């Protein structure tokens, strides 16, 4: 597949613009998935997908033959998503650090499938989503790449073009903030 992608890229660079469509079709969902995880918004994620493939096409001359196109376009997409998050204003609803966590306590001991359980699951998802919104753009991106995309610290640093130690610290800060925000989940019946 990799060799096939390289031949597609050579064709594009030789003037066959339509060949790029095959690369877009092949990688669009993977790019959408990471964009959605970073932005948390479907429309934003679609914007990131378009922007990433557009930039990828325009920068295709700088693509090195030894690299994998999937890794290359993934990095472009992550940076597009990060830039988008940085441009966006903070969400109106944010969890204050000194908020009374007892107000958000939920019970998770009951494992039986029931309407209450479904409601509980939805509440946990909402709490997690709010906790993710509490993170800065770089913390959220680093955490998504580490925890959900299973990327190593070195890969995160390379993708975000930061030092490995800075990438590690961003993940640490994200975990600490998330644990603080998700503390109510630890209260069991």
């Amino acid at each position, binding site marked *: 597949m990799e060799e096939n992608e390289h031949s597609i890229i050579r064709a594009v*660079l030789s003037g066959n613009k339509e060949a790029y469509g095959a690369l877009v079709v092949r990688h*669009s969902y993977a790019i959408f998935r990471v964009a*959605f995880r970073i932005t948390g918004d479907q429309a934003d994620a679609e914007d990131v997908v378009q922007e990433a*493939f557009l930039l990828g096409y325009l920068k295709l001359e700088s693509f090195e033959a030894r690299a994998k196109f999937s890794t290359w376009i993934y990095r472009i997409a992550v940076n597009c998503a990060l830039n988008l998050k940085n441009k966006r204003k903070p969400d109106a609803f944010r969890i204050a650090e000194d908020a009374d966590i007892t107000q958000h306590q939920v019970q998770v001991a009951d494992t039986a499938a029931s309407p209450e359980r479904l409601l509980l699951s939805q509440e946990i998802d909402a709490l997690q989503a709010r906790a993710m919104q509490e993170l800065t753009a770089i913390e959220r991106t680093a955490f998504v790449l580490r925890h*959900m995309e299973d990327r190593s610290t070195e890969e995160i640093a390379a993708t975000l073009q930061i030092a490995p130690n800075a990438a590690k610290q961003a993940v640490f800060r994200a975990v600490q903030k998330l644990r603080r925000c998700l503390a109510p989940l630890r209260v069991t019946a």
Partner: protein
Amino acid sequence: MNHLTEEQLIEHYYAESAQSAGIERHLRECNGCAETYAELRTDLDAIEPITAPARAAGHGQLVWQSIRNFVPVHRQQQQGLWQRFSHTKGLSFATACTLLIAVAFFAGRQWENYQRPLQIQAAANDRARQPIGLVVLGDHLGRSERFLVALRHGDSTESSALVKAEAQDLLSANRLYRESAIKSGDPAFAAALDRLERVLVEIANEPPNGSHARLAELQKELNTDGLLFEVRVLRSRVQDEQREQQPAAVRTLGVLI
């Protein structure tokens, strides 16, 4: 071993710790750290990966259609061939540097060859632009200065005859220099030569048996001291210009060699 920090535990959770075996051993021995790590693992395990909404089958094609009208056609065939020849960036850089130096060297040689006739022409033009031929003019002004000095100190009819002959000789040359000064656009020089010419005309047209008193009167009328000073200034200016022109000429010759 000290208790493990939260950072160490997080690293261990993501299997990125360089001391994984030591941390595992510590967790078996230290209940406090084991409890902390269990809490951390519970918290992080609870964070499910965000599930992206499913996309329609033709999603990729839709994305391509949305951008295809905004992208230009690449025309990089030549660059592609070039990249194939130069496999590494370092090689490309070294090749570019070598080419640049070679081009600069040959451009310099060509420029020098191109400039040589221009410099010769420029030197010729410079000489043509000189108000009057500096060397000859310098001689003329030197003679004029000596003439005016002699005129000021002249005290006999014999000397008066000599002065008159010298004035006649200088007069024709001075006319030529004055006309040249006017043509070359040097009005100050032309005016000075004009004043000198009037003195020369007066003396050249004196009757041959003119008395010493008449010469003294003429000296007074013509204010030769002022004119002498003016001629000295002109001669000094011409000498300066001669000195300035000389190094330029040497440089020009240097280029020619």
